[in-house]
């Protein structure tokens, strides 16, 4: 698929989907002036050189440490493989974000094991929680470890490399029959956080459950996600990074790029492709091609962003 280039005529939904089918082996995306172009298929060696220079950060998601069911009896082991892959990257990323479901059942030992492995990257990690990280009786283990300096259930923002990063929490206070939820307090904070920011500041929003509606029948969306997106509408470059659905999906709407990362633990089916969104058992030989991490690069002066999804294998 090398040389597969969408040209300057923009990207139709069909073409984006067409590229998504190739994302399993790594597609380099660049965003120029809000228009994404696929630069074609790349292997991981090329990906590494393609990401320099500029600021590169990594997204890791859904490590589900403690998961031991047939879909992957050793989720800690595949997390370790992902970390080894990160450590082998020729250019060291600036930092990492983790988009939630660090653990499977919020046990203290699961958090400890996750941290023991992830800390081997020697990178700063900015976390947001998934619903699996708030399951302990007192809902304290996540907060004790990662909640320092955050607001509400754990939302916060920071600046790096000229980009404004906003970590949101959409996994608490969920309403019967509904989807993910941000809530009025967090939306008010978001508005406040963005006040006075130059519209040319690139924005990265990250949260566990997709902020866009992927498949409401399986709860893959955020009830008031649209209200968060309204608040970033005027910005020239907006990137929304999510997890939760354990597969790569990408959508572009105007100046906003939506992207979901693979899990390091187990794959989930494509929307509607199975009776439920539960863990998908695949042949052992295929598993590592469906797990992985994402690498995101900003070339500051060009306002250009590239997302590379790298599977553990393949």
């Amino acid at each position, binding site marked *: 698929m090398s040389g597969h280039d969408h040209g300057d005529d923009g990207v139709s939904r069909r073409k984006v989907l067409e590229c998504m089918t190739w994302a399993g082996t790594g597609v380099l995306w660049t965003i120029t002036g809000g228009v994404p172009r696929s630069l074609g298929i790349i292997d991981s060696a090329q990906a590494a050189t393609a990401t320099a220079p500029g600021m590169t950060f990594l997204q890791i998601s859904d490590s589900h440490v403690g998961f031991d069911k047939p879909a992957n009896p050793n989720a800690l082991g595949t997390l370790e493989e992902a970390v080894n892959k990160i450590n082998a990257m020729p250019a060291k990323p600036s930092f990492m974000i983790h988009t939630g479901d660090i653990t499977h059942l919020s046990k203290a030992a699961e958090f400890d094991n996750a941290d023991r492995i992830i800390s081997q990257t020697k990178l700063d990690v900015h976390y947001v929680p998934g619903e699996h990280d708030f399951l302990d009786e007192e809902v304290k283990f996540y907060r004790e470890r990662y909640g320092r300096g955050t607001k509400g259930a754990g939302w916060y923002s920071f600046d790096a490399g000229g980009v404004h990063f906003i970590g949101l929490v959409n996994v608490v206070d969920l309403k*019967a*029959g*509904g989807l993910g939820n941000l809530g009025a307090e967090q939306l008010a904070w978001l508005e406040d956080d963005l006040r006075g920011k130059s519209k040319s500041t690139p924005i990265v929003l990250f949260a566990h459950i997709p902020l866009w509606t992927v498949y409401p029948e399986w709860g893959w969306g955020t009830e008031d996600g649209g209200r968060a997106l309204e608040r970033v509408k005027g910005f020239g470059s907006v990137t929304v990074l999510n997890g939760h659905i354990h597969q790569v999906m990408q959508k572009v709407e105007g100046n906003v790029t939506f992207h979901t990362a693979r899990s390091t633990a187990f794959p989930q089916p494509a929307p509607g492709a199975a009776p439920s969104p539960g*863990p998908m058992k695949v042949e052992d030989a295929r598993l590592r091609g469906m797990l992985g991490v994402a690498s995101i690069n900003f070339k500051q002066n060009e306002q250009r962003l590239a997302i590379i999804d790298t599977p553990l294998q393949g």
Partner: protein
Amino acid sequence: MKTLNRRDFGVAVAAAILLPATTARADDMEVHIDNFVFQPAELKIKLGTTVTWTNRDDIPHTIVSAGKFRSKTLDTDDKFSFTFTNAGDYKYFCSLHPHMTGMIKVE
């Protein structure tokens, strides 16, 4: 009237205690969670019935009825039971996957 000896009296008392309990158990109801769905999604029961939910998914779930009952997180094959002592409609959902909803109607 036959006089109960001490041994027979003991048996009679035991039967009196056990019988209602056995009857109540026969009325108890089960709800299974399979593929992120409560089955059956709606259940009609008599007052005093105990309903037991069993999570048969590889993913944890909860059973929450606002202001009425709330289970701990149920991992695979974990169970949660609740005895309904008031009539009415009890809507409930999984607080982790809120698209999962169910209803218990107590008559």
